[in-house]
């Protein structure tokens, strides 16, 4: 049985802080523009659809669909080598944006495109300003 990927605290800056603080609360936080309504990810200081500063954050449903995936059998980096084989994927959130993530909670061979998935959060060591307190990944819904 391969080990799971051991996530570490992720660095963030003030543009991405709301996303990672949301992860710490086990919420998947996206941005929406109050002027034009565009949803965007990754987070930015302003809306790149209309260049407005009026960005607000909201908690997404955490539900989505596997857009594509790969079963990784080889990764030379020590942090990932022992976790092979693991599933790397893009999940298309019901709110629109696609996130790169891992799919867990089933055999890699059971993952397929179109599969409904839901977010879960792995708590990691870390303090504000040094890194995220949790990393989101997905499992079958």
């Amino acid at each position: 049985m391969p080990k799971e990927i051991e996530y570490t605290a992720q660095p963030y800056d003030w543009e991405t802080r709301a996303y990672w603080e949301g992860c710490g609360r086990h919420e998947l936080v996206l941005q929406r523009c109050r002027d034009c309504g565009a949803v965007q990810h990754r987070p930015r200081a302003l809306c790149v659809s209309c260049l407005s500063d009026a960005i607000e954050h909201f908690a997404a449903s955490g539900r989505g669909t596997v857009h594509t995936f790969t079963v990784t059998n080889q990764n030379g980096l020590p942090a990932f080598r022992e976790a092979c084989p693991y599933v790397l994927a893009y999940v298309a959130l019901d709110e629109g944006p696609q996130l790169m993530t891992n799919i867990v909670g089933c055999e890699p061979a059971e993952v397929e495109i179109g599969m409904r998935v839901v977010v879960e959060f792995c708590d990691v060591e870390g303090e504000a300003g040094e890194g995220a307190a949790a990393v989101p990944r997905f499992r079958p819904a």
Partner: protein
Amino acid sequence: MSVSGKVAIAGVYEHPARWAPNKTENQIMAECARGALDDAGLALSDVDGLFAAGIGMGIMGVVNLAEYLNLKPDYLDGTNIGGSSFVAHVSHAAAAIHAGMCEVALVLYGSTAASNAMAIGTGMGSGGRDPHGAFVGPYGMTTVGSYAMVAQRHMNTYGTKSEQLAQIAAATRFHASLNPQAKMRDPIEVEDVLASRVISSPLHLLDCCIISDGGGAVVVTSVARAKDLAKKPVIVQGCGEAVCHQEVGTPDLLTVAAKQSGEKAFRMAGLAREDVDFCTIYDSFTITVLVTLECLGFCKPGEGGSFVEDGRIRLGGALPVNPDGGGLSSNHPGMRGIFLVIEAVRQLRGECDGRQVEDAKIACVHGTGGILGVSHSGATLLLANEAG
């Protein structure tokens, strides 16, 4: 007003080394400069434009290279958009020459990727320890893994099969078997590709490019100057560049930069896809070639799988691709774009002996830089000899 028909490639050189642990990268570039200038019948003192990119070349990279070569050119370009950089350098050089900023441009690349044990495909994809990389970093993305996700999506959307991707690897190896300089020359069949281990599903080991050392050089000048030089000029008829990325979270993974850069290049050249005699296409992985052929317009989206079957992309087929054996089999020293230009020029001059594309007049060159599925650049050139 475009550069189409105004600028020519006058000299090329591919370093023969595939393993060069006793050479520095600057040395490889200087040896390539000597080769390409000899080929053109020019001297280092003729060079007034210097273009280079490299994995290890930092902010002052092209300046440091100028010092190594003791050159003081009038025009410098250190654009680094990944492996496609050198294809872009040729179009940048064409623009600079056409605008009178320089007259003889030298494009250089040199790398000891293999002897440095650089694990390009499976050891360095995961994103930096920075806020931007944090959206990729935790998840163990490899370079091959991201391309594999493009392949998986293509298979799911269009029914493309591993056997069809394997046709690309087998055709490219056949070409390498005819190239005495190629690193991997033993022919392989579709079954060999499918029997090789899966690195990141659905891509097998033999769907992936090799890693080698090496380098190359290209000399670009005006058509007027090229006419008096040693070799027959190869004319730049069209060029284009483009970029694809994550947008605001909703990218179409199957539409690659080649669509935008290719349309631009074909429009500039006034050429149709049917006019092209062969292609050199960045083949980091078999899927790269398949989606690039689709997005360049040689077939419709989703038809790449059937397009590459039945020998169409082999020498003797309707559209030979990578007759030198490509990155899949000949050489891949980290960034491969320069070899796409070099092989296209050698073919258009009729210098390729056993792997010569018959009656080659027009080449389509397309470089991809970066990582399909995450963010990448594309650069397209349409090149022609005097018959084209």
